[in-house]
């Protein structure tokens, strides 16, 4: 079908008039959408995804209206993970409608999110929109109400935006169930997924259409040019006498900002974003007013302010964490800078893609490497992105807390047979392998307990009522309370930060508790002084000029992706061979291999040569373990060079620590890192070669890991989330209880009781599954051990911290709380250590 005839001539003419030639994304999508196919469109920002998805939809609705056949029911549901995306879209869709119809178009486009007022909701019910823009949570809220099902029974199109940001987490699993329920209810549903560039697109396509659906994947991601390069302030001599790299980095960043119109700077953690904003302003006071900070812990108004100014082109730089990664319209950004590696190729491409906001411009992205490992990693990332070697996606498997929530939601609108419900749930891709026994356990839990418990007590306060065939949800209070508690986003203990006139954002409670009145900290890139703390709020005043303490949000730090790890391993092996064979001009070879320029190549050569001389270059063919005696602490450090990413190393380190403890007694401190982990032990726990088979054995790995995380804070954290999502405790329950601070009836309490008496409770199982998949990658560790069984271990004594272990070692050092230290303390250490390297290990 030629593109022109996939939409009506008038629509095509209108579009051509306004926007010119259709983009590749649009050309690919329109005919298929017109044919009723499910499609997954992978395409970077600025390539016309909105109209790729919506032109056909709008066109049909216009035609229906012209024929007098447009009914008052929802025809199209659009779901996105960010409210901001939906706000933007509403504006974008109203534009053509207004051009066609004037101020009150007969085709209604409306938003439904947590922010929608109750009067708006009432109006939406009486006169439903034709296109509904919503979030996963709000969609579930609607699906949980019988009366809304009427308006949702003739939906023709379901559009899911930024689907890659949903597929890999529980929110996506939650949406997946909603999608199947909607499809089941409507009989027929065309699904359109919009994604940025990730792989495997096949997995995401399955996620979109469910276990048995079909989907065409349209990958037009190479239609936009992305140019990535690596920049380092390290220069020839990585650790010069004068000045610190940290300061130099800020200065060079500032110069880049000066040279461009608008720069978007990504930092991996929120505290980094705050610190960088602060230092940029300090060093470039003339730009201070046009440099802003943006991240999710900032108050919505503060964020929208920044977004609006950015859109209007008023800002020269915005420093953010991951908050601006997704497709909100941010105007035209001509440069993207990533401070240190983005930890994965997909992230690098995604972020760089935010630059150059139309199809014809080139997106420029710079990775700023701040130390050696960073440098190599960044180079590897850039190489891989050029080859389009993208990261994998790991989806949560049958998360039971999400399932519990949906069971209650399903039961609100009708009675379900057990078999029918199970079949529907398994249509959702993340739940395709849901075990029938687990499903029954979830039903029992929601019914208030197992059969014997229900027999003993007339009232067990369950959420659902089980009968011979199936279940339904109890009426009245249960349903009302349920509607208030839909969603998977956990309620972490947050304190709102405000001045007398304005709400600035929120900060974790743990952080505020460490502070005293009068302390200065940073928020929205500006220092503020703590004046007063109440249960839920921290009152502050502006403290410009004072030296702040940076709040440390517990934002997830991303681990290294497998692909990049493999690439680094490959590079190391080749370099090692080059050294062993005495090749000449290795620096030139490095420059070519990593495409990193002469200066960078020299630094990389210098470092790896030092590693080669002091120890050896680790590769994937063996496990290098370096032993270092720490005279000062009277301890031993073991550097394990398992380059498998931090989450996998976290799992591995825990198991090994546990086994060491069993073998030798005592404790060990393990510090996991992307490149390996450090084990610190007392001298009497010294390793010998003979220890390794047992430490690295596969047998009993799962049990050892289970034991290792049993009492961990991390597991309790996951349980707390599972307890909230799984309706054991209400989100706002914590807020109320926090006012009885002392007593702290927290999820930890329930966790302890369950751990003792009912460790197989469905929510405990979910907490473990989540822990072993999210922060700890058990799979990754297991895979490593399997491969390691046929490889040797080399234990080496080293006289000082070798170059390739330095990053791991430095991670051990606690992040100091003062803003200057992360740069300066590290720098001082690097400096001292580098001096030792230069002068030979036996001097000092």
């Amino acid at each position, binding site marked *: 079908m030629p593109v022109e005839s996939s939409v009506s001539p008038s629509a095509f003419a209108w579009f051509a008039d306004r926007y010119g030639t259709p983009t590749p994304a649009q050309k690919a999508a329109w005919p298929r959408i017109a044919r009723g196919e499910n499609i997954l469109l992978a395409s970077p920002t600025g390539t016309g995804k909105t109209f790729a998805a919506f032109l056909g939809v709008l066109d049909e609705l216009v035609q229906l209206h012209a024929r007098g056949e447009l009914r008052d029911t929802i025809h199209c549901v659009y779901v996105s993970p960010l409210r901001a995306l939906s706000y933007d879209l509403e504006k974008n869709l109203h534009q053509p409608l207004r051009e066609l119809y004037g101020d009150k178009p007969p085709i209604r486009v409306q938003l439904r999110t947590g922010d929608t007022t109750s009067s708006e909701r009432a109006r939406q019910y009486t006169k439903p929109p034709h296109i509904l823009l919503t979030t996963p949570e709000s969609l579930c809220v609607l699906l949980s109400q019988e009366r809304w099902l009427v308006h949702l029974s003739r939906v023709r199109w379901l559009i899911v935006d930024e689907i890659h940001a949903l597929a890999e987490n529980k929110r996506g699993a939650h949406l997946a169930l909603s999608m199947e329920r909607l499809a089941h209810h409507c009989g027929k549903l065309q699904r359109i997924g919009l994604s940025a560039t990730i792989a495997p697109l096949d997995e995401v396509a399955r996620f979109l259409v469910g276990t048995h659906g079909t989907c065409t994947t349209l990958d037009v991601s190479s239609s936009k040019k992305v140019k990535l390069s690596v920049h380092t302030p390290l220069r020839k001599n990585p650790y010069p006498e004068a000045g610190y790299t940290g300061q130099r980095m800020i200065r060079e960043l500032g110069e880049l900002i000066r040279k461009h119109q608008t720069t978007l700077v990504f930092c991996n953690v929120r505290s980094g974003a705050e610190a960088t904003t602060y230092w940029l302003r300090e060093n470039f006071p003339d730009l201070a007013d046009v440099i802003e900070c943006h991240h999710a812990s900032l108050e919505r108004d503060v964020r929208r302010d920044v977004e609006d100014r950015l859109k209007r082109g008023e800002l020269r730089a915005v420093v953010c964490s991951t908050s601006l990664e997704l497709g909100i319209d941010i105007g035209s950004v001509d440069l993207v800078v990533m401070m240190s590696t983005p930890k994965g190729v997909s992230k690098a491409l995604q972020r760089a893609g935010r630059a150059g906001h139309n199809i014809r411009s080139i997106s420029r992205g710079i990775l700023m490497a701040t130390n050696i490992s960073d440098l190599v990693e960044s180079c590897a990332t850039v190489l891989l992105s050029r080859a389009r070697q993208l990261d994998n996606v790991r989806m949560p498997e049958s998360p039971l807390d999400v399932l519990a929530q949906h069971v209650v939601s399903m039961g609100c609108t009708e009675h379900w047979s057990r078999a029918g419900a199970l079949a529907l749930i398994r249509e959702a891709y993340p739940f395709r392998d849901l075990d029938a026994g687990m499903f029954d356990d979830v039903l029992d839990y929601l019914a208030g307990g197992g059969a014997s418990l229900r027999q003993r007590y007339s009232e*067990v306060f369950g*959420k659902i009522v089980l009968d011979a065939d199936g279940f339904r949800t109890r009426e009245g*209070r249960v349903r009302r309370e349920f509607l208030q508690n839909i969603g998977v986003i956990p309620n972490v203990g947050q304190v709102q930060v405000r001045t007398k006139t304005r709400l600035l954002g929120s900060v974790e409670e743990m952080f505020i508790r460490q502070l005293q009145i009068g302390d200065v900290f940073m928020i929205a890139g500006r220092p503020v002084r703590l004046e007063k703390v109440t249960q839920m709020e921290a009152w502050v005043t502006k403290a410009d000029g004072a030296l702040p303490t940076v709040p440390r949000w517990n934002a997830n730090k991303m681990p290294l992706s497998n692909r990049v790890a493999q690439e680094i391993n490959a590079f190391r092996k080749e370099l090692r061979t080059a050294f062993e064979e005495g090749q000449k001009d290795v620096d030139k070879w490095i420059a070519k291999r990593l495409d990193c320029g002469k200066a960078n190549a020299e630094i990389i050569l210098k470092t790896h040569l030092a590693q080669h001389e002091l120890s050896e270059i680790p590769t994937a063919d063996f496990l290098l373990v370096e032993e270092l005696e720490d005279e000062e602490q009277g301890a031993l450090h073991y550097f394990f060079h398992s380059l498998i990413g931090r989450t996998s190393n976290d799992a591995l380190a825990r198991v090994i620590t546990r086994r060491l403890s069993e073998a030798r007694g005592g*404790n060990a*401190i393990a510090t996991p890192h992307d490149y390996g982990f450090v084990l610190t032990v007392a001298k009497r726990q010294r390793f010998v070669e003979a220890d390794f088979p047992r430490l690295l054995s596969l047998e009993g790995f799962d049990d050892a890991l289970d034991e290792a995380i049993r009492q961990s804070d991390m597991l309790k954290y996951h349980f707390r989330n599972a307890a909230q999502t799984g309706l*054991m405790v209400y989100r706002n329950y914590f807020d109320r209880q926090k006012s009885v601070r*002392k007593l702290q009836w927290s999820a*930890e309490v*329930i966790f302890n009781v369950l751990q003792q008496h*009912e460790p197989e409770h469905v929510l405990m199982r979910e907490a473990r599954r989540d822990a072993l998949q999210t922060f700890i990658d058990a799979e990754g560790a297991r895979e490593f051990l399997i491969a390691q069984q046929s490889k040797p271990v080399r234990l080496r004594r080293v006289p000082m911290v070798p170059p390739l272990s330095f990053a791991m070692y430095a991670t051990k050092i606690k992040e100091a709380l003062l803003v200057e230290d992360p740069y300066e303390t590290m720098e001082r250490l690097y400096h001292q250590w580098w001096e030792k390297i230069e002068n030979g290990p036996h001097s000092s």
Partner: protein
Amino acid sequence: MDRTRLELEPGVWLDAGRAVWLEEWRTLAVADLHLGYAWAHRAEGQLLPVDTGEDSTERLLRLLAKYPAEEVVLLGDIVHRAVDVPALHTELRWLALNVGERARLRLIGGNHDWELAETLATANIVLEVDDHAVVGPHLLLHGDGADEITAEARLSETGPRRGRVILGHEHPAIGLSDGVASHVKCPCFVAGDGFLVLPAFSHWAAGGDIRSYRFMSPYARLRPSTHAVAIVAGKLLPIPLTKR
């Protein structure tokens, strides 16, 4: 050496079973049972597990097997909330019957017990709920509700008599770390100048780390705390407290 009990001062024994034994008067005292905790939450819509963790009666019987008690005092917050739930009534009856067979049971009401009298009546349990109890020179109460003046007055009375004000209410706990990787929070007793705070008897009590929190009760605030006795793995561990 039997680390499950510790003599705080002549005749006053702390037991790792979360009780205090007043030897001369053959009285056992525990605090903060919070019976029906899970049921109370269920009635609020929160699906806590009800079949687990409720073994207060069994633990009291173990204590009774260990000490020749004539009297058992429950120092308040006996129930978490007096929900009208048969399970709670049964639990109370079970306790009253079993303990009552072996010793005289005395109930002191706490801030969670304001409907307890009614619940007892519904459950056909004939027991009074008192405000406080005097055992020898000691004053036993829950610890809520008193103002500083009253508290000061009472402390001044018991002091000279070589007695203590014994209270619950605080759910004291203390964090212990091995300085390396492990960190646990253990329930504990807190002993001070003329007072003794009991740990919560209930497994459902998380407890607040006494090093981070101020006591709520003036009985524990007006005088300095001298040390904590933590219950770790069924044994007692005295920990001196520097300042409070």
